[in-house]
C-alpha cells in the first residue's frame, strides 16, 4: 500500500517534469514562459530557504541577499574574467554559500525575532556596499552581453528548481535532516544528545544559500542588466518567507506549492490589473483616495491579506491544513467502524 502510493507519486512527478520540460517547444508566448520562469525562481528560492527556515526553524528574512550576491558574482565573473556562463553560475552558488557561512555563524547565535531582524539587515547592507563599489559599476550596475534565449533560461531555472527540491528531499531523508529538525524542536535538548547545534545551523544556512546564489546567477543572464536596487530587494526576502509559510514548512513540497500558487496569482494580477483597476475606479472617491493605485499595490495588498489569513486560519500552511483534513477523515473512518 505504502510502496504503491510512493510509486504513484514518483510517476506523477516524472510526468509533470516531462510536461514542464516540453513546455517551451509548444510555441508558447514569451510572456507565458516568463511566468513559468518566475515560478521556478521563487520555487527554488523558497525550497532552499526552507532548509534553514523550515527545518531548523530559524526564519531568515534576508535570503534575497544570496540571490543578489549570486547575480553579481556571476555577472562579474562573466564580464571581467570571460568565464563561461555555466561556470560563473555554479561559482555564484558556491560564493553565496561561503558568504552565508560568514553571515550565518554570528547571526545564528540569536534566536526568533532577533534572528529575523539581523538577517533582514543583510540585504540593505549588501545593497549599500555594491552601490559604493567601483568595479561593480556602483549605482549604475552591470550590463551582461550574452544571448541566452528565453526557452534556455526557462530550462535553466527549471533545472535549478528540480535540483534544489532534490537537495531538500535528500536532506529530509538523511541524518543531517534529523539534526536540522531537532534544532527546530528543541535546541537545548539537541545539544544534550550530542548535536553540535552551532555547526549544524551554520551548515543549514550555507546549504540554504547555495541555490539562491545560482538562481541569482541565472537571473543576470536572463535580464542582461543588474543594479543594486533590482537584485537586492527586501521585498523579495519577505516574499520568500511568505510563500514558504503559505505552503507549509514541514516538508519540501510546501514551499513549492506556496510559491507556485502565489507567484501565479501575482502574475495574473499583473496581466489583468488594467481591468481590475478600471472596475475599482467605478467606486466613488476611489481615485481621490488612491490616486497612484497600481497592479503592484494590488498584489501587495492581496499578499498582506493572505499572510494575515494564513497566520490566523492555517498556521501550518497548506500542508498542515491538508494533513488536518486527512486526519479528520481517518478519524471518521475508524469511528464508523466501531
Amino acid at each position, binding site marked *: 500500500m505504502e510502496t504503491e502510493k510512493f510509486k504513484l507519486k514518483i510517476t506523477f512527478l516524472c510526468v509533470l517534469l516531462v510536461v514542464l520540460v516540453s513546455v517551451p517547444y509548444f510555441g508558447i508566448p514569451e510572456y507565458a514562459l516568463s511566468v513559468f520562469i518566475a515560478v521556478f525562481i521563487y520555487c527554488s528560492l523558497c525550497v532552499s530557504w526552507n532548509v534553514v527556515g523550515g527545518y531548523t526553524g530559524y526564519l531568515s528574512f534576508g535570503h534575497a541577499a544570496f540571490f543578489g550576491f549570486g547575480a553579481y558574482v556571476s555577472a562579474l565573473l562573466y564580464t571581467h574574467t570571460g568565464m563561461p556562463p555555466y561556470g560563473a553560475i555554479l561559482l555564484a552558488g558556491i560564493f553565496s554559500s561561503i558568504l552565508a557561512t560568514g553571515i550565518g555563524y554570528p547571526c545564528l547565535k540569536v534566536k526568533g525575532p532577533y534572528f529575523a531582524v539581523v538577517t533582514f539587515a543583510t540585504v540593505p547592507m549588501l545593497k549599500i556596499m555594491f552601490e559604493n563599489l567601483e568595479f561593480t559599476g556602483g549605482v549604475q550596475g552591470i550590463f551582461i552581453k550574452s544571448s541566452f534565449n528565453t526557452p534556455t533560461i526557462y530550462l535553466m531555472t527549471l533545472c535549478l528548481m528540480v535540483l534544489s527540491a532534490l537537495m531538500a528531499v535528500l536532506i529530509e531523508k*538523511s*541524518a543531517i535532516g*534529523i*539534526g536540522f*529538525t*531537532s534544532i*527546530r*524542536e*528543541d535546541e*537545548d*535538548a*539537541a*545539544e*544534550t*544528545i*550530542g*548535536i*553540535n*547545534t*552551532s555547526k549544524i545551523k551554520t551548515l543549514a544556512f550555507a546549504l540554504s544559500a547555495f541555490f539562491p546564489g545560482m538562481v541569482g546567477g541565472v537571473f543576470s543572464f536572463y535580464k542582461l542588466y543588474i543594479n543594486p536596487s533590482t537584485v537586492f530587494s527586501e521585498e523579495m526576502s519577505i516574499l520568500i518567507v511568505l510563500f514558504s509559510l503559505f505552503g507549509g514548512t*514541514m516538508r519540501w513540497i510546501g514551499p513549492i506549492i506556496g510559491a507556485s500558487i502565489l507567484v501565479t496569482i501575482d502574475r495574473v494580477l499583473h496581466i489583468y490589473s488594467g481591468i481590475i483597476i478600471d472596475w475599482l475606479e467605478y467606486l466613488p472617491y476611489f481615485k481621490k483616495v488612491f490616486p497612484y493605485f497600481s497592479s503592484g499595490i494590488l498584489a501587495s495588498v492581496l499578499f498582506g491579506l493572505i499572510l494575515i489569513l494564513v497566520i490566523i486560519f492555517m498556521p501550518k500552511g497548506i500542508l498542515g491544513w491538508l494533513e488536518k483534513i486527512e486526519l479528520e477523515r481517518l478519524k471518521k473512518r475508524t469511528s464508523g467502524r466501531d
Partner: protein
Amino acid sequence: MLLEVRSVTKKFGGLIAISNFSFVLEKGIMTSLIGPNGAGKTTLFNIINGIYPPTSGSIIFDGKDITGLKPNKIARSGIGRTFQTPRLFNEFTTLKNVISAAIYGGGIRDIREAKKRGIELLDFVGLEKKKDVLAKNLLATEKKYLELARALAIRPKLLLLDELFAGLGESDTSNAINLLFKIKNDMGITIFMIEHNIKAVMKISEKVIVIHHGEKIAEGVPKDVAQNPEVIKAYLGEEYA
C-alpha cells in the same frame, strides 16, 4: 573516580546560585542529590552538563577537564541527561527521538543501524508499541521513559536524571526503579539523580548529597544523612532539628 566537581561557584549577576561546591562520583555508585526547592539542584546539573559554564572551579570527567565545554561535547564525552519536565522533539515520532540521539551522541552513522538501536532501547523502557506515535501525543509518564531512552542512546558513562520519579504513580515508580538497576548493573552506567521522592532515594541510592542555598550541607550513606541535624533543619525548619 568518574566525576569530580572541584569548588564550583556559579553567580547570576549578584546572586550566588552555587557556592564553592565540591564532590566526587565513584563509578557504579548510585548517587542522589537532594535539597529543598530552589536549592540549586538543577543549576548544578546544568553546570555539569555544560548549559551554564561555572563562574569558577572545575569539573573533571573520566580523567579529562570538561569545564566550559559546550553541552554537545560533554554529551559526546559520555554524560547523558534528562530534564525535570521532559524536553522531547515533539513533532518527531517516539522512535525518531531515540534515533536522533543514537546518530549524533551515539556515533552510529548508518540510519538503519540507528533505527535498530532505537527499537532496542524503546523495548528496554517498554515503549516499543508506541514507536510510531508522535512524542507530543504520549502520556506524561511515557514521555519520561522516552527521554530516558533518548539519553541512553548516546551511550553515556554517566546519566544525570532530573526528577525521574516526579509524577509517577506507585507501580510506575517501582517499574522505573527496576529500570535504573538494570541501567546500572547491565549497562554499567553510573547514575546521578535529583530526587524529591525520599522513599525512592532511601531505597536505591548508595550515597546522598544534600544541597541547601547552593551549598553542600551533607554527604554520605542515606541512613546517616537522614539523621543529620543540618538536613532536618533545611527540610523541616529550625525547631525540628
